[in-house]
């Protein structure tokens, strides 16, 4: 116990234990998935290697700590505007990425920091984007809701608009014949959008390789699912599209379901829909305390019983797949990474004023841009 408290001594203890002592791989029972228009679903067990476990743990912890740091910076007014935090939902982003590859495509709405990370962004450039600096992933031009990486199309601010966009990406995959697919995410609030049903229709008609994923965190802003939706069985809302309802707090459940869905798509069967039942600890955004429409008891209950990081940690520890010290080391390393990123994000300069008119058009000659008065001359660059 004393050794746990003194990190230095703890690492000495950890290094004296060889890695041959750890279980390299274990199989876990995972919750059965509810099926819609499917005879069979994903398997009821999932195999986790030590390496995978450590990787998922580290990534989820990184997302968690990054979001909490964003909360801090927002309260210090260093981050402005909209900031929609993902803590509590980590198993979704990490589990999905575990079921696809980086050559597949993904698009989501505005609660996007976690995905920006799993899709190849660094904490540094994500945080610097939140603080609006030139080192940000979108050079400070986009902010929280408009971050992009290779095969990741944001970060989208208009509820529901990202879903048809994702189907367009899937159409391109089919058109180009590259065996890739697109994961198109939306929330329980967006699930009632007409354009999503339009997208269900066209994706099915044309058999597009798209995985629709509804991240149901029970609340669309301040409106609970019962108050917004005549049917809260979001995995069935695709009607003729087969669906799965999955425990979104269990990274292994999410991963297995995603693998299953990806196989379905890649076999040319067309779209499939996954509902991930998950939860956000924060309010809708930083301007929402998140307790006027739900109780603190409810939030606390989810934290203590279903936290995705704790669930993975308990599994690994109880199966001797890692040691407490080792996980603590990861925590410390993550904390350092976040601190360094925050340091960068708060000291990197803001974008130069020359950037005001850059990136209006691609591959174009520079042209004059109308400024606030007729006498100021601004020039755009591509």
């Amino acid at each position, binding site marked *: 116990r004393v050794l746990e408290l003194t990190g230095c001594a703890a690492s000495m203890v950890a290094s004296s234990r060889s890695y041959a002592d750890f279980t390299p791989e274990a199989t876990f029972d995972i919750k059965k998935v509810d099926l819609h228009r499917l005879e069979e679903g994903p398997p009821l067990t999932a195999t986790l290697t030590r390496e995978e476990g450590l990787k998922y743990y580290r990534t989820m912890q990184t997302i968690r700590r990054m979001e909490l740091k964003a909360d801090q910076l927002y309260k210090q007014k260093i981050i402005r505007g909209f900031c929609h935090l993902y803590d509590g939902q980590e198993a979704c982003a990490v589990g999905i990425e575990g079921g696809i590859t980086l050559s597949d495509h993904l698009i989501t709405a505005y609660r996007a920091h976690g995905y920006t990370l799993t899709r190849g962004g660094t904490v540094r450039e994500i945080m610097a984007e939140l603080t609006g600096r030139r080192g940000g992933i979108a050079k*400070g031009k986009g902010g929280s809701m408009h971050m992009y990486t290779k095969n990741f199309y944001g970060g989208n601010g208009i509820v529901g608009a990202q*879903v*048809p966009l994702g189907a367009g*990406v899937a159409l391109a995959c089919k058109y180009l014949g590259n065996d890739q697919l697109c994961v198109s995410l939306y929330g329980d609030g967006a699930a009632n959008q007409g354009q999503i049903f339009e997208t269900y229709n066209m994706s099915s008609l044309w058999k597009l390789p798209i995985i629709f994923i509804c991240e149901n965190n029970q609340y669309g802003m301040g409106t609970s699912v019962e108050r917004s939706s005549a049917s809260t069985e979001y995995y069935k809302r695709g009607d003729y599209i087969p669906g799965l309802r999955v425990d979104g707090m269990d990274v292994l459940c999410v991963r297995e379901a995603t693998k299953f869905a990806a196989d379905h798509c890649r076999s040319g069967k067309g779209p499939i829909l996954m509902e991930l039942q998950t939860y956000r600890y924060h309010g809708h955004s930083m301007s929402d305390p998140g307790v006027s429409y739900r109780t603190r008891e409810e939030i606390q209950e989810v934290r203590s019983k279903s936290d995705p990081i704790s669930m993975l940690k308990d599994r690994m520890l109880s199966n001797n797949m890692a040691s407490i010290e080792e996980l603590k080391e990861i925590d410390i390393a993550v904390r350092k990474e976040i601190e360094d990123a925050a340091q960068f994000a708060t000291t990197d300069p803001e974008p130069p004023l020359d950037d005001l008119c850059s990136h209006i058009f*691609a591959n174009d000659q520079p042209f004059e841009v109308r400024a606030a008065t007729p006498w100021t001359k601004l020039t755009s660059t591509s």
Partner: protein
Amino acid sequence: SSARPLQRLSIVLLRKVNVRDALNQAMDEELERDEKVFLLGEEVAQYDGAYKVSRGLWKKYGDKRIIDTPITEMGFAGIAVGAAFAGLRPICEFMTWNFSMQAIDQVINSAAKTYYMSAGAQPVPIVFRGPNGSSAGVAAQHSQCFAAWYGHCPGLKVVSPWNSEDARGLLKAAIRDNNPVVFLENELMYGVPFDLSEEVMHKDFVLPIGKAKVERQGTHITLVSHSRCVGFCLDAAAVLAKEGVECEVVNLRTIRPLDVETIEASVMKTGHLVTVEGGWPQYGVGAEICARIMEGPAFNYLDAPAVRVTGVDIPMPYAKILEDHSVPQIKDIIFTVKKVLNM
């Protein structure tokens, strides 16, 4: 006969091509040139296009490249933009631009703004096209001109061809452009034939987006217009010429970016400006041109206030007599020119 030198005859071969066929040929050539180009929209494939602009394309290119969509503009416009994100070069047809209102969020928020928001990481090489503005007897919901609405937005290029050369050159340019282009056609112009030279018929003929054309030289007054109204300006100019008034007619060709330099050069020559458009007056294309002239070097050359001729500020009525009085007529242009010239 004897050793007389052969006379060189220079023959300019002209072909009569109507606007519809010019658009059709432009799309055909661009589909052939780049396999990433494809067309989607309602009735574009098996019906040959609601206005037959895509006639024959499905037969030639098939289901993969000419796609009939359900009547779900928001959905298919979003799909088109997503396809552009992923590297394809879609042409998204709106059966008329009135229906684009259902999809306008995808045009503005998903297409126009993305390159900027991503700091250049995500270009959007898409063309949205379809007939714009008033037609004949189609009433209020099918007659709106969207030049001003789309022309308002940075990140979009907005093009409004008048004749077949414009239609061909600008559509090819739009398809080759790596940016979102709003391409505003005109249904009443589809069937109108124009002579096209061999040079224009060349498969790589493109017109620069953002450059206006002086269709008729003149000295007394500048008429600036776009789309079908350019023809009315030329007709008015012919009538006015008989009374000794020489109008310079400028065909905008592009709404955004606006070629204010060409307009200024013309106004600095003639000292008088009239803008002519089919759309509504308030916050319209003519309003923008007048404001820019006020703010720029040409103001000092104006001998009279710049004035706009526009559609009447009402929803379009159905009855022919009312419809005829809802849009600018040639007599309105002539009347305005004479007022501005104090004749």
